[in-house]
């Protein structure tokens, strides 16, 4: 299942749709498991009337978590060495997100073979919501 260094090329792309029509219920599920119960994510009344946002919106960490499943599906379980992102746009209920990894380097590090990846997740309008990078151990 693991990637093989000699089969990887700079520019290779792996892409997955990580959520279609994001529901408020999934955001509630994430609040419950992560422990971040900020009402900005789950409480439409507070969010629109007090905080003055158009709607509740997803935790940045939910978007990062969904992006992370694309990475582990691609590089294999327990293979990530680093994963970092910037949150570049808010994600609202109804979003459909596509996460993409692009190979930027295949190299040796501390006697292991690793792949460097650019990571980007976009919504259904093409707006980037998460931008970052990751490194994973390969065979």
């Amino acid at each position, binding site marked *: 299942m693991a990637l093989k260094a000699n089969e990887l090329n700079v520019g290779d792309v792996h892409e997955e749709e990580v959520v279609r029509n994001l529901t408020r219920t999934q955001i509630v599920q994430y609040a419950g498991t*992560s422990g971040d119960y900020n009402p900005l994510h789950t409480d439409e009344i507070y969010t629109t009337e007090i905080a003055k946002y158009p709607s509740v919106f997803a935790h940045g960490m939910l978007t990062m978590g969904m992006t992370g499943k694309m990475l582990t599906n691609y590089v294999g379980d327990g293979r990530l*060495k680093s994963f970092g992102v910037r949150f570049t746009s808010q994600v609202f209920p109804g979003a459909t997100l596509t996460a993409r990894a692009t190979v930027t380097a295949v190299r040796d590090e501390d006697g292991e073979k690793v792949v460097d990846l650019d990571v980007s997740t976009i919504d259904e309008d093409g707006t980037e919501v998460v931008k970052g990078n990751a490194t994973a151990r390969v065979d």
Partner: protein
Amino acid sequence: MAVGKFPIEYSHIMMFARSVGDANNIYYDQDYAASTEPGGVIAPPTFVQASAQFDPDYFLRPKIGQEWFGSAKGPTGITPKPKSDAEKSGEKKESGSGGGLHAEQHYVYHRHPKVGDVLNATTKSGKTWEKQGRRGGNLVFSESITEYRDQNGELVVTATGVGVRTERPATSA
């Protein structure tokens, strides 16, 4: 965040995986997980965020017996306090939300947490920097670095978070 004991538990991982829509069987089936390269149920890449559950002081969780700022009968459960003189004169403004927003998150995996680990977490402040916001006002970024160590004191995950707050210039009304 300071967490004394963050037990890595199978059912918590299963529910976390569901919440991010991750159908990978390594998070749901311990027998299958035993047959994979990691050899058991491991944490998904962003799972250590859920250590907030084990932080007794985590401010984004309602506390038993205390008011909560989310909606209840009214749009917020907080009973309004009489305004201070500074607030009445406009010198001091109440903030509209429950704190800053999350700008960045970075993880370095020294290894991946697995079921049965008991981690602890200590957080220290990192860099702070400012940037001009697009709609005027200053954006203040601050970094916090959390080290997750296991029951043997070994470093497991280093997590660096960056938060951002808006700060109005002193000259604006």
